[in-house]
């Protein structure tokens, strides 16, 4: 009897809450959809005080940022996780892992502060696409390392031993291990990119602007980005511009859905 009550209560709560979240998302995202498909939203610059036109420069800015973060963090993260799983043992391995998990817990705004002091001021790079991407990379690398290492370690020890006994170098063994764990690693990378795509706080203080007349011509130029554009419109502009923020929010949700769908597909491939 009690069991039935609990079961139904739990069911009720689950459905209620899930419905709530979906409702909230639907409320923001659904109205924004039609703006995305509006003529010029994705291809034009904003006009008339951001009441007309599109978010093209923000789209490009975010794209450049994700690309740059990918280029910087993926090689470093993969190499570092190889180091962790293949070259470190025992105590050192535990220490390095706890360093990485400590870093994943640090709030993103602290990475923004670090980026500001170190990349912008200390290294004198000013506020730019580069410094924003570097700050995001500093945040994303430990995340990718912690997720990837788990997959690397899951590759059976026998494969390594067999290879070593045949005379393979550490390098070749590592390649084999990566091959074995590639799906998990790709998942980790996608997750990392998804996270850095949505982050606002660190790039707010290290490299983004709210309006730019041109696309960035070098990595030293400041850029517009999708999340900061939402924030800027909501914060700085009036009623007639809010539709642009809504469209941008919908667009961001769509991108997240795409990334996570890719992850789901990867997971499915693994199970199969």
């Amino acid at each position, binding site marked *: 009897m009690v069991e039935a009550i609990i079961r139904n209560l739990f069911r009720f709560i689950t459905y209620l809450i899930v419905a709530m979240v979906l409702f909230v998302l639907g409320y923001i995202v659904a109205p924004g959809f039609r703006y995305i498909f509006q003529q010029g939203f994705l291809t034009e610059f904003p*006009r*008339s005080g*951001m009441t007309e036109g599109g978010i093209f420069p923000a789209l490009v800015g975010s794209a450049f940022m994700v690309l740059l973060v990918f280029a910087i963090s993926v090689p470093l993260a993969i190499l570092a996780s190889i180091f962790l799983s293949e070259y470190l043992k025992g105590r050192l391995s535990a220490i390095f892992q706890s360093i990485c998990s400590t870093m994943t817990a640090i709030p993103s705004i602290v990475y923004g502060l670090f980026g500001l002091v170190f990349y912008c001021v200390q290294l004198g790079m000013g506020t730019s696409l580069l410094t924003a991407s570097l700050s995001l990379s500093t945040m994303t690398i430990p995340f990718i390392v912690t997720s990837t290492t788990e997959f690397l370690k899951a590759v059976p020890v026998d494969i390594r031993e067999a290879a070593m006994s045949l005379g393979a170098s550490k390098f070749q063994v590592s390649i084999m291990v990566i091959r074995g764990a590639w799906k998990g690693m790709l998942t980790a990378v996608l997750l990392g990119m998804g996270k850095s795509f949505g982050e606002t706080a660190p790039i707010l203080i290290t490299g983004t*602007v*709210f309006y730019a007349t*041109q696309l960035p011509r070098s990595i030293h130029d400041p850029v517009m980005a999708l999340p900061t554009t939402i924030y800027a419109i909501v914060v*700085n502009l009036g009623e007639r511009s809010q539709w642009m923020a809504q469209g941008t929010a919908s667009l961001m949700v769509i991108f997240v859905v795409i990334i996570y769908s890719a992850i789901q597909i990867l997971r499915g491939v693994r199970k199969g």
Partner: protein
Amino acid sequence: MRKVILVGWMMVMVMSLSLFATNLVVRGSNTVYPITQLWLEAFKEMDPEVVATLEGAGSSTGIRGLFNETTDIANSSRFLSAREIEDMNQAGRYFVSLVIAYDGIAVVVNKSNPIEEISLETLKAIYTGTINNWNQIDPNLPSGRIAVFSRSTASGTYETWSEKVLLNERMHPSVQVVESTQAEVENIRRNVNSIAYIGLGYVTDELKVLRVNGISCTVDNVLTGLYPISRPLFMFFDLKPFGFKWPDQGVVSDFITFALSPKGQALVAQAGYIPAYGDK
């Protein structure tokens, strides 16, 4: 190998820092932001190749940018403070101040609030926490806790308010400090108990503007100085990079010339502010 390429690439980029493109960086006041946005859009139509960026996180951030040499032009809804002038002199810089528009700070409340006017002293009492209920101002008003809104300390609008209304006293901690005028407008529109101060350019029909000390916040009253809480809006730029001479050429010069031209000033009016130099 990838790493070598990456490091090499980064070194080239860093070295190219010295060959910085002629950018126009404008930063500062939230209040001036809508005007500058219109200016930059028009400026881009005149010169499609221009590379300009705009940020608005508050007047203090713009002036800070001038000091840090991270911005060419600082938008500001207040003049430099005594401290900033001192720092400027000590650093051997010279920030030229240009009045680009006039703005009144309107006191707004919800449309269904019966109140029509308010005095400076009452405003000060509200913002310093001495008064916190509407019926303390006027017993005829319905009772309700006043939801007081303000911009953050980075805002020139806040600084002006602090100087002219608060008389430099501390604002009460219960005052809701929000990041944007838009958030204030939203709250005023919907919250019967709210009160806020916003630039005249942000006023819409959905808000009620109060008379202050009996004077309405109109364009004429602001221009003649009758309205007690008005201020010029400024652009500052540093003369030092130009050898302490007025710049005759370059993107900063072109932009300023445009901003102060009749066409630029017409855009000021379009943004809802009061042109400084006539808008034929």
